């Protein structure tokens, strides 16, 4: 059997050599088709991946409609909470874990006066953030609920900020001065930067630069550190006349997250949200029926449109492109195989079975597939260098050529060629020996 296989391969190679131009055309066609679809797929994969696969079905964004049907957007509650609702959810503590967060940007004063102050961006959040999102730590850990309640000036910094400020040494217990306030460092995170940054889609930070610092939410609000991200006030005008009024007003700017581990917990949390909204209605704040949402990470990313339309359009077009390349290959293989109808007739007349013909021609098609796939992988590699020309740099940076992509490119190439070879091979196997011999 293996001897037969090698023989078929030899036959195929000889046949492919006989018509170099046609062979080259087929190989190029497959190569381009595979490369175009793989490059766009790599980008699509990068932007549509699950940023936290182990927990994406347990982390939820509660949304509460504080605008009402007159002012909300197409019946949906706003994408974030106002301060009142955020604090109510934290106080109620109805989920095993919950956190609120908003982006902050603070000026960091380096210890030695020679260096210029620089801006560090990060989040004001609660201690639960680190366990909920499974943030890996290089040194120390996150802070606890005592620090949240005590508004303690503590900070968690990133590995890269630690490198910049302390040369990478264990800085737990040391001090960092931000916006002229001293903070005690309690932890240094590893390079942790899920993409898209699912937990801050509200401020458009899905592909923002890595986070450098985290501070307690309660302290940040006390220090009147304003949001460095979005603040959405809607058009109902209840937005306050100063900082205090803004905190009490209906502008939304806080991203809420809760962790719910079982279906019962999810159900209970939904009921809690509806109950809360009813309370607000009874208190006269809302004049509409509860209109809440509880979306998990997948549903949230989908709702927020995390995958850029550019990426979807180009993936669609690239798949169409691959189909055209396959149609092209079918046409060329058909031409090639049918040209050898006389040879097939002779072989069949000499006792070769249909299965033999199948095996011989599929081997030949497989060789074209491997060659085309190899070319496709090469072109994919070249294409990946050019991704930056087509997609925005923060997205292009995510798309990588790795072993799985190479393997996928090769299998797509071979699978599609063999698929494309079936029809021409079937036609070749239908050749009637007698008819061919007669016409000669």
């Amino acid at each position, binding site marked *: 059997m293996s001897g037969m296989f090698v023989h078929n391969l030899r036959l195929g190679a000889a046949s492919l050599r006989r018509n170099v131009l046609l062979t080259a055309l087929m190989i190029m066609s497959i190569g381009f088709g595979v490369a175009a679809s793989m490059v766009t797929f790599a980008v699509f994969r990068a932007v549509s991946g699950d940023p936290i696969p182990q927990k994406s079905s347990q982390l939820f964004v509660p949304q509460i409609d504080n605008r009402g049907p007159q002012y909300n957007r197409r019946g949906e509650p706003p994408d974030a909470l106002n301060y009142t609702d955020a604090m109510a959810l934290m106080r109620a503590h109805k989920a095993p874990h919950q956190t609120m967060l908003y982006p902050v940007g603070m000026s960091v004063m380096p210890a030695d006066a020679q260096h210029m102050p620089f801006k560090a961006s990060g989040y004001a959040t609660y201690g639960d953030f680190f366990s909920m999102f499974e943030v890996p730590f290089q040194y120390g850990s996150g802070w606890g609920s005592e620090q949240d309640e005590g508004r303690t000036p503590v900070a968690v910094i990133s590995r890269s900020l630690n490198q910049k400020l302390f040369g990478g040494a264990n800085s737990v217990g040391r001090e960092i001065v931000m916006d002229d306030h001293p903070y005690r460092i309690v932890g240094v995170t590893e390079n942790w930067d899920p993409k898209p940054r699912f937990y801050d889609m509200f401020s458009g930070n899905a592909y923002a630069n890595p986070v450098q610092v985290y501070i307690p939410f309660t302290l940040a609000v006390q220090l009147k550190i304003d949001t460095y991200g979005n603040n959405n006030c809607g058009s109902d005008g209840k937005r306050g006349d100063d*900082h205090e009024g803004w905190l009490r007003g209906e502008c939304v700017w806080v991203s809420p997250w809760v962790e719910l581990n079982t279906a019962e917990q999810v159900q209970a949390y939904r009921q809690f949200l509806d109950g809360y909204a009813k309370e607000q209605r009874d208190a006269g704040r809302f004049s509409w029926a509860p209109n809440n949402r509880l979306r998990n990470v997948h549903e949230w990313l989908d709702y927020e449109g995390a995958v850029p339309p550019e990426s979807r359009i180009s993936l669609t077009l690239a798949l169409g492109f691959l189909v055209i390349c396959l149609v092209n290959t079918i046409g*060329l293989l058909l031409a090639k195989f049918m040209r050898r109808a006389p040879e097939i007739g002779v072989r069949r007349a000499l006792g070769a079975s249909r299965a033999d013909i199948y095996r011989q021609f599929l081997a030949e098609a497989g060789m074209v597939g491997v060659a085309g796939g190899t070319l496709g992988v090469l072109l994919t590699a070249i294409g990946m260098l050019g991704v930056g*020309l087509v997609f925005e740099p923060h997205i292009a940076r995510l798309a990588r050529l790795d072993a799985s992509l190479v393997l996928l490119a090769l299998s797509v190439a071979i699978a599609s060629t063999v698929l494309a070879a079936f029809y021409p091979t079937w036609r070749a196997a239908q050749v009637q020996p007698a008819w061919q011999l007669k016409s000669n």
Partner: protein
Amino acid sequence: MDIKPILSALRRHKAGTVLIALQIALTLAIVCNALFIIHQRLSHLSEPTGVDEPNTFVIQNEWVGTPTSQRVDAMMQEDLRVLRLLPGVRDATASNSYPLRGGGWDDGIKLKPDQVKDTTGSAVYFGDEHFLDTLDLKLIAGRNFRPEEITAMDVRDKLAPPVMIVTKPLADKLFPDGDAVGKTIYFVGNPTTIVGEVELMQSQSVERWASAFAWRSLIVPKRLAISLGGFYIVRAQPGQLNAVMRSAPAALFKSNPRRVISDEDGVLSYAQIRDKAYESDRGMAILMGVICLVLLAITAAGIVGLTSFWVGQRRKQIGVRRALGATRQDILHYFMTENLLISCGGALMGAVLAIAINLWMVTRFEMHRLSLAYLVAGVTILLLLGQGAVLAPALRASRVPPVEATRSV
């Protein structure tokens, strides 16, 4: 030329014919839509901002610590004085945002205080009496702000400006009769009088979320004095842009070092701002262009390959026809016409497919309807491509000598 024999010959090559037609159809469908996307993106790319772009740049200035609003206002006024005195600077202003920045403040406008829904949204720019000159905005009605009208505002203060300047598209939306200047509107719930109208100023973003209020912008006589910082927009004298982009941050640091101006993107020329804002449009146009070219090349190669095969297969018949008196011209015409017939069939299918794909994208990606011109252009390109691709094999066929008729295959 009689097409009957061609049709009957094609019936004997059903598979090949269908494959070529299918390939032409798919290519046409994709090329039409790709050309359409390219044109849309390119026309988007060349939209004006209203700003004197070659001579303008923006500094993002952030303060160290959390100074009070009063303190920030004093520092901003000092910065603006330093910038305006700098050699090579024509004018400078401070704002919360600028056209093409990608984000900023937008808010709703009502014509009556008790109105429920906004009449329109608008981009909101903060500016002083130097704003129009710095951004090169043409005042077409009314007047500019007076220096005494400019006041400072902290981030969460109520925005209730007594006067504002609007762009013409916003004025036309609010008052279609063209008499916006002097009228009172309700902005964030407070009455405001329109004192001036400028010709053109783009919104802070060209992304989809901002398309509802594209070109509708307004300027409030305010300095946003907040500890987070803001933007200085600087217009240089012609030819001085590069020099001023270097000297301005240095002068600001010399006057007051308690600030952060990022090395990376703290100082941006309008060319850089435009590149960044339209990155995805440009990328999409490039991608579509490359896909179109490769696709056309592959389709052409496919036609060459399959026609070459047919020519090879029919050498004997061609020889017979030649021996029976057909000229070289006749043979050439035969293959050209054959390709034209297949291409027309493919183009017909492709046109239907192109419209179907477009309709799908209209619903899926909020794109516009495909105009007929693209279909016509696509069909023309593909018919010409087919004729070009078939030329070489057809010429080869026409050179088959009549003696071929006597040879066996």
